[in-house]
């Protein structure tokens, strides 16, 4: 679900950087207004490592291979910290393993980081009146699965609207549809993982879910 270098036109990659920088600035600005902005940095650092490692775990799903994303989990556990954490993780993935690209770092940040913020919002809505129990798990499942599903849709939308002229559109669209279908098990898996994690944290350290 990472857009590699050389796929998108320069105008789109630059726009991705502009949008991504804007969202990152907004997140950091809101974080700085907190009483202790550094409070969540340890958690953000550890979850950045988890996000970085997750992309290395591939699940074969023809015609492509899908991998864990965990952007929903980051959104639920980090809130506003999720977007900069994902940007840092994407940067490491691109530099170390060529996963994604440096020119597409901005657009990948929007594709993966934007849904993470949405997941945080979905989870906060779901838990507004229910601190523990089954509804926490359901809210976690919805947040985790919706983040991956939205990321996959955004990825497909960006690709299909920026096809190069030498590519056969029908072939690429069919492949993208197959890729989206291949992500359905991942959507369920990430929803389940997020639900399990938030349930566990809700029982052991519920204050971590308040952010």
């Amino acid at each position, binding site marked *: 679900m990472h*857009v*590699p270098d*050389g*796929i998108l036109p320069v105008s789109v990659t630059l726009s991705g950087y502009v949008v991504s920088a804007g969202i990152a600035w907004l997140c950091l600005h809101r974080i700085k207004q907190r009483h*202790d902005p*550094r*409070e969540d*940095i*340890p*958690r953000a*650092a*550890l979850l*950045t*490592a988890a996000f*970085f*490692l997750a992309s*290395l775990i*591939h699940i*074969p799903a*023809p*015609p*492509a*291979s899908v991998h864990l994303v965990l952007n929903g989990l980051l959104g639920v556990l980090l809130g506003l910290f999720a977007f900069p954490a994902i940007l840092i993780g994407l940067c*490491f993935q691109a*530099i*170390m*393993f*060529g*996963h994604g690209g440096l020119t597409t770092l901005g657009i990948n940040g929007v594709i993966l980081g934007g849904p993470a913020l949405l997941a945080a919002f979905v989870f906060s809505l779901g838990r507004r009146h229910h601190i523990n129990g089954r509804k926490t798990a359901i809210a976690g499942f919805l947040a985790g699965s919706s983040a991956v599903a939205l990321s996959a849709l955004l*990825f*497909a939308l*960006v*690709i299909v609207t920026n096809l*190069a002229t*030498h*590519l*056969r559109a029908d*072939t*690429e669209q069919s*492949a*993208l549809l*197959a*890729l989206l279908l291949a992500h359905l098990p991942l959507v369920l898996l990430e929803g389940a993982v997020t639900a399990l994690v938030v349930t566990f944290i809700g029982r052991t350290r519920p204050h971590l879910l308040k952010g």
Partner: protein
Amino acid sequence: MRGPKVRTLFAGLLAGMALTPPLVQAHGAIISRTTQTVICVQATYDSGQPMAGAQMAVFSAADPTRARLTGTADNNGHYCVVSPPPADGAISIQARLAGHGAIIHIPADAERGFTQNSSPRTAAGYNTTQRVVMAASIVWGCIGTALYFTGRRPG
């Protein structure tokens, strides 16, 4: 009486030779030689899974915006170009499938039988040990950051 018979026989022979297929007429053999450059690439995901049916495009270094050739990779992600244009210049071959893709730049003086990866940074360019060490270094950096800020937390 012999004259017309001979003429008729001669004319019949000529007509028969004219109607005989060229393959039978030939007595000599000629082999013509054309030397062609064949460049074969294999497109795979960084997990090693082949990009079956990927759309392939060949670009020349002189005009990297316009594809000179297009084609489709086979089920194993293999794609071969015979005498890619321009034959005397560098080319780039791009593989695309479902939003994933890579491009390989092949210099004009590429060695025969030389194996080259699209990018030295791709995961395919590292062995498992190298990948583990690289991933561990990043993870340790994150853990170190977490420990540093945990230690500085007030109270």
